[in-house]
């Protein structure tokens, strides 16, 4: 809820740091009886829906987003944007704005009472283009996505348009949309449900999230304050001023600070969310860390951790992504980040199916890969949650034991580390060529891992590997000497008559040879979403490319087999 930032009227909120543009409702053609079949409808223009839209649009697919609200996300939600999301946003076309506006960080401190018990730095190669995390408010992220979408005439957002129900037959999906000027039905070949935690699509299809919810409650407070407190994730467990509570603080751009504090089991929520009460608590906390600057509250909201997922993210012609598919406790900073990863996995597959290049079975791999990822994300986030808001007597005892032991004993401090940025690797699925992962590799990214965004030294500073990846598949061919190898490979791929691209990128850079444990003739095949599909110490195009086409259910391939 807005606090000192004035609420001007019901439904509007003037933030202290963000200018909300309210987009006027535009009458949809369906309201005047004009109807057509759209290739893709996306319900919800949150960060996930807009990322799916952006990636589809740049692949030439027409998309229409339905958005209930008339603006981007109001108030406090995600602040911790992981490196992987920054990479995905930039590849989808946002430019570097999110990264450049955000506050970069790579670690943080935890305190128990008044002792420092953890000072952590995330381990990552120091020459990657992006830091492990940046802090920036979700509304800013969404604004960048919205602006990037403006470059695509084939993507449109219908504001103030609420999906109220959805139904499908084998051929199409029909979404019923409520607007200020009446309700209409809209037809799509595919519907992507990115309509958040309370997904109307999920309800319409009778699908249920399963998992656990946590009792512990937090208040999330954003304040504006000019302060020189450091960036990063700072946590105070049982600070002297607030015994029995945990307080988290993050620096954001525009002099905004996110303060999350744990409420006690007996605290009355209605009372605790009152600005007067919040002011009192935050004031006491800030004074206790030596902060003297003036500040004002921008937003207050209560939070309780949920860890839930659908069993499957595909239901016929409907695909679920982001919070509509899974809810991950905030302590792992993996909710939006996981959703953006869903978008990145889904968009190319959906584009290939809509374009008629691949059988729609390819979309089942979206579901299996991302359900698996959600479980990995939930496991990380739940570990963090069990520490931040111990759900049982045993967890509470362990939390106190670990924290008090950590004051003097470093061996135990690792348990306090939130592990918000451990990157996921796809652990299974038809699109991973495991047996290609020859034991002769002693290092380098494994199949299923993200192709790291390392610098390309030979091409001058500023150029990074992910910038070289094609829109579709990319074959990184390690070849220092043979100048014709890449050309030959390109010609060969050309002859295969594949409907999408397989870019061949010749790598000569010694540092990349080392990072990929490559020798002349080694190849890594990178998927359109940037994950390594397979790698070969000595690449054999004939067998491998056939296998790839089969795995992704390429129709050209199937028809060739029939021939």
């Amino acid at each position: 809820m807005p606090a000192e930032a004035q609420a001007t009227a019901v439904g509007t909120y003037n933030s202290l740091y963000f200018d909300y543009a309210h987009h006027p409702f535009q009458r949809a053609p369906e309201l005047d009886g004009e109807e057509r079949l759209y290739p893709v409808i996306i319900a919800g223009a949150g960060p996930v829906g807009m990322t799916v839209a952006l990636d589809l649009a740049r692949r030439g697919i027409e998309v229409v987003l339905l958005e209930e609200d008339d603006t981007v996300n109001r108030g406090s939600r995600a602040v911790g944007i992981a490196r992987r999301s920054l990479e995905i946003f930039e590849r989808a076309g946002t430019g570097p704005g999110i990264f450049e506006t955000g506050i970069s960080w790579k670690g943080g401190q935890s305190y128990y009472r008044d002792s420092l018990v953890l000072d952590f730095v995330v381990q990552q190669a120091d020459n990657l283009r992006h830091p492990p995390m940046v802090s920036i408010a979700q509304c800013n992220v969404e604004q960048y996505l919205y602006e990037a979408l403006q470059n695509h005439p084939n993507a449109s957002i219908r504001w103030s348009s609420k999906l109220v129900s959805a139904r499908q037959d084998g051929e199409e999906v029909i979404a019923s949309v409520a607007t200020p000027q009446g309700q209409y039905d809209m037809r799509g070949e595919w519907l992507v449900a990115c309509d958040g935690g309370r997904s109307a699509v999920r309800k319409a299809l009778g699908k249920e999230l399963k998992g656990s919810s946590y009792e512990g409650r937090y208040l999330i407070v954003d304040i504006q304050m000019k302060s020189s407190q450091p960036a990063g994730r700072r946590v105070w467990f049982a600070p002297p001023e607030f015994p029995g509570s945990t307080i988290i603080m993050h620096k954001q751009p525009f002099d905004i600070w996110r303060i999350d504090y744990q409420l006690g089991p007996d605290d009355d929520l209605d009372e605790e969310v009152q600005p007067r009460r919040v002011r009192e608590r935050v004031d006491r906390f800030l004074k206790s860390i030596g902060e003297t600057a003036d500040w004002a509250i921008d937003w207050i909201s209560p939070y309780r951790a949920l860890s839930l997922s659908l069993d499957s993210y595909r239901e016929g012609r409907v695909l679920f992504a982001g919070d509509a598919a899974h809810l991950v406790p905030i302590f792992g900073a993996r909710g939006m980040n996981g959703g953006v990863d869903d978008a990145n996995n889904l968009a190319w597959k959906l584009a290939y199916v809509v374009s008629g290049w691949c059988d729609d079975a390819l979309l089942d791999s979206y579901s299996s890969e991302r359900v698996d990822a959600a479980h990995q994300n939930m496991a990380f986030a739940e570990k963090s949650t069990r520490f931040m808001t111990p759900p049982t007597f045993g967890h509470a005892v362990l939390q106190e034991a670990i924290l008090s032991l950590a004051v003097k004993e470093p061996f135990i401090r690792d348990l306090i580390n939130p592990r918000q940025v451990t990157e996921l690797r796809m652990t299974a699925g038809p699109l991973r060529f495991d047996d290609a992962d020859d034991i002769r590799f002693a290092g380098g990214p494994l199949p299923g891992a993200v192709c790291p965004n390392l610098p390309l030294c030979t091409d001058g500073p500023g150029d990074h590997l992910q910038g070289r990846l094609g829109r579709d598949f990319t074959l990184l061919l390690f070849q220092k000497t043979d100048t014709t190898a890449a050309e030959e490979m390109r010609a060969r791929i050309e002859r295969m008559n594949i409907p999408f691209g397989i870019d061949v990128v010749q790598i000569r850079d010694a540092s990349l040879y080392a990072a990929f444990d490559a020798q002349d003739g080694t190849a890594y095949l990178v998927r359109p979403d940037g994950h390594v599909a397979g790698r070969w110490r000595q690449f054999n195009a004939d067998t491998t490319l056939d296998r790839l086409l089969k795995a992704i259910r390429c129709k050209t391939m199937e028809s060739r087999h029939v021939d």
Partner: protein
Amino acid sequence: MLIEAKIPSHILEANWESLAQALNTVGSEKASVFLTKVVLMLAAKLDRPETLRDFLDVALQDIEPQQK
């Protein structure tokens, strides 16, 4: 039987006494936190830290579980 080593009785007795004294110092409210700290350190000293699971199983025997 999990522990086969024969511990000299003077050591057993000394451990008994110091543990009792330490528990008295801590008091009942924080006894579990205190003992957990001890266990975490002992576990870190084990050759195979996962052995703790076996110890827990043995310790769980013949103790009345809490009424739910």
